[in-house]
């Protein structure tokens, strides 16, 4: 080995010094990027508050029958004796009493609090299921389009364009009654499970495009990264590269997209109810409750107030959590 003397000397000096090893030799188990993000999220006060709010709401919704038992009022119980001749609740502020915390519905006289809990269960289920399905479809379509490129990308992007060009509300308006008619006669009762399923399918068909676009963009920027090439150079197949190498790097945008999709579907479901499609009576549904309450804005403001404020808080909490999640997962972004 003939070195030029200068090089040799320079190198010899450097040689003994090993790479600076990260301190804290004791904590051998490293903190994954996910754990770091979690730690950042827990330090974020807004995120903590929104998270707690959401957990309370979700637990209440899941435990609706239990809440009903403790509260002592069923969702379909009518308290007609507490309404006046016009069907408006007796007493002040929409009939709030110790038994009926949020008052009673006008006309039917059902308890608003327990209807809301049950309605939330329906709405949250629809929203979460729809978000789950759309995210799954969007991720698969986005990964395939982004990684394979070429004709696959062209086709998937084109389908995305078509889906975006279809007017969602009009289609939903047309599909829901038609679908019910297809499977059930005009006089048959449509079971709630079917109504819920139809809504989820509609949201899924129209909702996957934004996630697909997002994931596609991410994959395109990751695809050329050398760790993917390293896997390819080792003989990895497509499945390994997509799901072992790329997917772990996509969790951040997927999670953010998911957390922002849920409130969209909550309000979307409410909007569909507003147009007269969605979950039918007597099943309790949050979206329909809001839509039904609006005509009473002047005569019974409390009826509008409780569901309205609740959906506002719910959506706000989801939005705040989504933002906080984005910050925690991508500390570089300056939101």
């Amino acid at each position, binding site marked *: 080995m*003939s*070195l*030029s*003397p*200068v*090089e040799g000397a*320079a*190198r010899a000096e*450097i*040689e003994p*010094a*090993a*790479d*600076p*090893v*990260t301190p804290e*030799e004791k904590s*051998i*188990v*490293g*903190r*994954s*990027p*996910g754990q770091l993000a979690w730690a950042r999220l827990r330090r974020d006060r807004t995120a903590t508050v929104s998270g707690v709010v959401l957990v309370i709401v979700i637990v209440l919704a899941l435990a609706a029958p239990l809440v009903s038992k403790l509260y002592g009022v069923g969702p379909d119980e009518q308290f007609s004796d507490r309404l006046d001749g016009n069907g408006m609740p007796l007493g002040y502020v929409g009939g709030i009493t110790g038994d009926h915390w949020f008052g009673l519905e006008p006309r039917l006289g059902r308890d608003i609090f327990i209807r809301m809990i049950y309605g939330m269960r329906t709405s949250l289920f629809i929203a979460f299921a729809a978000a789950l399905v759309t995210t799954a479809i969007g991720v698969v379509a986005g990964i395939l389009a982004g990684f394979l490129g070429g004709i696959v990308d062209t086709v998937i992007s084109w389908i995305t364009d078509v889906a975006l060009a279809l007017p969602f509300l009009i289609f939903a308006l047309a599909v829901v009654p038609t679908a019910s008619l297809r499977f059930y006669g005009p006089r048959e009762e449509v079971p709630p499970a079917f109504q819920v399923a139809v809504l989820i399918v509609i949201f899924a068909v129209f909702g996957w495009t934004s996630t697909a676009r997002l994931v596609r963009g991410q994959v395109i920027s990751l695809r050329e*990264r*050398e*760790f993917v*090439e*390293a*896997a*390819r*150079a*080792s*003989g*990895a*197949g497509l499945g*390994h590269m997509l799901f072992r*190498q790329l997917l*772990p*790097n996509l*969790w951040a945008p997927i999670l953010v997209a998911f957390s922002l999709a849920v409130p969209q579907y909550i309000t979307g479901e409410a909007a569909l109810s507003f147009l007269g499609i969605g979950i039918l009576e007597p099943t309790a549904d949050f979206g329909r409750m809001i839509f039904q309450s609006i005509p009473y804005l002047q005569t019974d403001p409390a009826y509008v107030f409780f569901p309205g404020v609740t959906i506002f808080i719910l959506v706000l909490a989801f939005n705040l959590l989504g933002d906080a999640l984005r910050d925690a997962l991508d500390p570089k972004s300056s939101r």
Partner: protein
Amino acid sequence: MSSPSTATQTPPVSPAEPLLRVRGLAKHFPVRAGFRSSGAVRAVDGLDFDVRPGETLGLVGESGCGKTTTGRMLVRLLQPTAGTIEFAGRDITHARRGALRPLRQDLQIIFQDPYASLNPRHTVGRIVAMPLQVNGITPPGGVKKRVQELLELVGLNPEHYNRYPHEFSGGQRQRIGIARALALRPKLIVADEPVSALDVSIQAQVINLLRDLQRDLDLAFVFIAHDLAVVRHFCHRVAVMYLGKIVEIGDRDDIYQRPQHPYTRALLSAIPDVTTLGPAGRIRLTGDVPTPLNPPSGCRFRTRCWKAQDRCATEEPALTNRDGGRQLTACHYPEQGPVGAGPEPGPDAPATSGTVEVSQ
């Protein structure tokens, strides 16, 4: 090139037999302007070279000369446009993934960017174990034991198995990349500028690690670099590339001490080395590297060469032995004598040689 069709015809690879044999290797990237393709970037345009077992070949040249493309073709991350790559006597130029699999184990790559080449969401253990996992290999003693051996081999603490790449420095990350490349016990490693993204002080450590590994494990290397000082430290043989072609190839000492190609001389003179800071000084090449979309006719270096003649524009110089030199040089008018003499504007050099500027 008639490739041996059966294994029985393949002679056992003896030390004299090249491990890697590259002939006429080319990669053209089509450039599309509209629906018709309007030519191609000839990134690599006909390379011939061999690498023997345990030998290190340095591939040097300016950025854009096709070194990296060549490296990627060797490990089949890119599909060659033309030419053949033979590895251990087998033609792998167009082998499919399944057929390539056993060869993958013998042929690995180390990447330039230690930040992009490690998956940020995987633990070090998982990164190093990836090649084993992908090829379904369970080494004796288990994957974890093997990974820890590898980490130790590259000078990392084997207890850092569960850490994530972001917890390591650039040099340490490059060591992880090296451990990953070693996982399958390869015979040849393509190292694509493995140290150019590192601090100078760290560069030396990584180079020394590679040199030790090369000696201890009898590895062959194709070492891609733009830094001639690093190549000199590491390589047995050196190939100098310019615009997709090899302009000079030979043993290290021949290339460094008696370079024949003007381009090699210019590159060597650019090494900041006190020993050569004599009166000769540095050759400054002027002008830009011509576009590989439309390379110059004849000798590709002629547009920047101070010795260029009419013949250089019409006749492409072959890569052969010139004037008693032991290396192969692609130049009609090779330089003579040891380096340091500087460019001698020969008697037949054009008087209006404005292409070279000698700073004193």
